[in-house]
């Protein structure tokens, strides 16, 4: 799986960071998400899916390879 970000949509709410710490971070200066692990381990799928689902701006999506 691979995380995709639409930076036109992200506003830096940091919900993803709360759901999947270590996978996402937020750059406070830019108020934008930083994807720390673009291809996270399969074991983190549930957290990553929650991060995507609860993103207030729907800026994230998951691509299957």
């Amino acid at each position, binding site marked *: 799986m691979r995380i*995709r*970000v*639409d*930076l*036109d*949509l992200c*506003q830096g*709410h*940091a*919900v993803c960071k*709360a759901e999947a710490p270590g996978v996402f971070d937020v750059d406070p200066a830019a*108020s934008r998400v930083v994807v720390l692990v673009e291809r996270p381990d399969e074991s983190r799928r549930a957290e990553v899916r929650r991060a995507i689902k609860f993103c*207030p*701006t*729907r800026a994230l*999506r998951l691509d299957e390879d």
Partner: protein
Amino acid sequence: MSAAPEVPSAAAPAPAARRGKAPPRLGGGWPLLGHLQQLRRRPIELFARVRRECGEIGEMNFAGSRVVLLSGEEAQEAFFRGSDEQLDQAAAYPFMTPIFGRGVLFDATPEQRKQGLRNQSLRDSFMRGHAEVIARETQRMMAKLGDEGTLDLLDFFSELTLYTSSACLVGKEFREELSPEYFRVFYDLEKGTDAIAYVNPYLPLPAFRQRDRARRRLVELLSAVFERRARAPKERRELFDVLLSLKQADGSARFSIDQITGMFISMMFAGHHTTSGTAAWTLIELLRHPEFGARVVSELDALYADGREVSYQALREIPQLEAAIKEALRLHPPLILLMRKVMFDFHYKEWAVPAGKLVAVSPAISNRMPECFPDPDRYDPERYAEGREEDARLFAWIPFGAGRHRCVGAAFAMMQLKAIFSTLLRDYAFELAQPPESYRNDHSKMVVQLAQPCRARYRRRSARRSA
């Protein structure tokens, strides 16, 4: 979504590098005023006519201000992906400057705004505390209701959301200083957004005089508050006490009371009439569709049967209630026209909009496009159920706008509405006190408000009747 991920918006980098056709102009304008009178009377009809007669792009004329309306999912996406440098939000709302005052929010450059009031209180980590405050404020309003009676939906929700917004966004101590007079003053400010401001925002008209009187009164009220607050112990100081105490090098105050009043208005404005109106419409639609209303009430009864806190549940899923709020937002978006000023030529397909004109998108039109929302005029909260999820069309379902400038308080607003109805509908049952079709919005001002009268009857639910 069509755009490639991780690529910032594809705004044309070089001004005047491309040629393009001028967008078609909408007919039926008056001399000088253009379509201004139609904007002030039946704005949604006007925007629908642009789409019908001109297509996905068409130019309106508001007393010399040329506003190009983009509609349809693709054209709206181009609008929402425009960069700040190309499409400036600040310059597009002349009717707001006399309300905020000079030097506040919409009067600042995009760069100033980026560095300025970044509202930390909207961060996700604060939400639980906010939910608690909102539930408590709702209970305080309910304490005034008694066992049964009728209430005016505009007055009730305006007052409630004034308290919740100020307690969450400004400060809890500050909120205690507010009286019902504030929401009436705020209402007059909101009514001061007549589109005739496109001619001149300072014309000697009743709505503008009332607006300016309201603003002066607000400065007066806040001056008294700040005087009292100046004597408050240091550990109880909040945002405004700090702003007020800032000094310049020569010892004079950094911000005047007038400026601080402007900051207060700008912090409150975006979240107040919008949430208040949405709360009212959510309730009206639930009462117009009692079978769905009953589903929401049983959903809440089941969720809270174990005595859990509203502040816990309001941050989590309440699917039927959320669907009801989303459907109220789709049918009655609080903002019906989102605008940007074009800073250098904006291209869309074969068209070009030159610098100086405004481009706009209308949530009221978009939210009812039949190609995105089947049977668009029908109240149908099932649209948001799994499998349909019509709100996932990010550039079509746009009660909060879209893209970088999407309402930054959207998550807060949804949580707030969930907390309000979790509290309200557990203790009270409501019914319409007027014919169902008599509830409507007043579109004579740019800030849309429920038209009065808009009354509802309430009675305490029997199991919870006070002894």
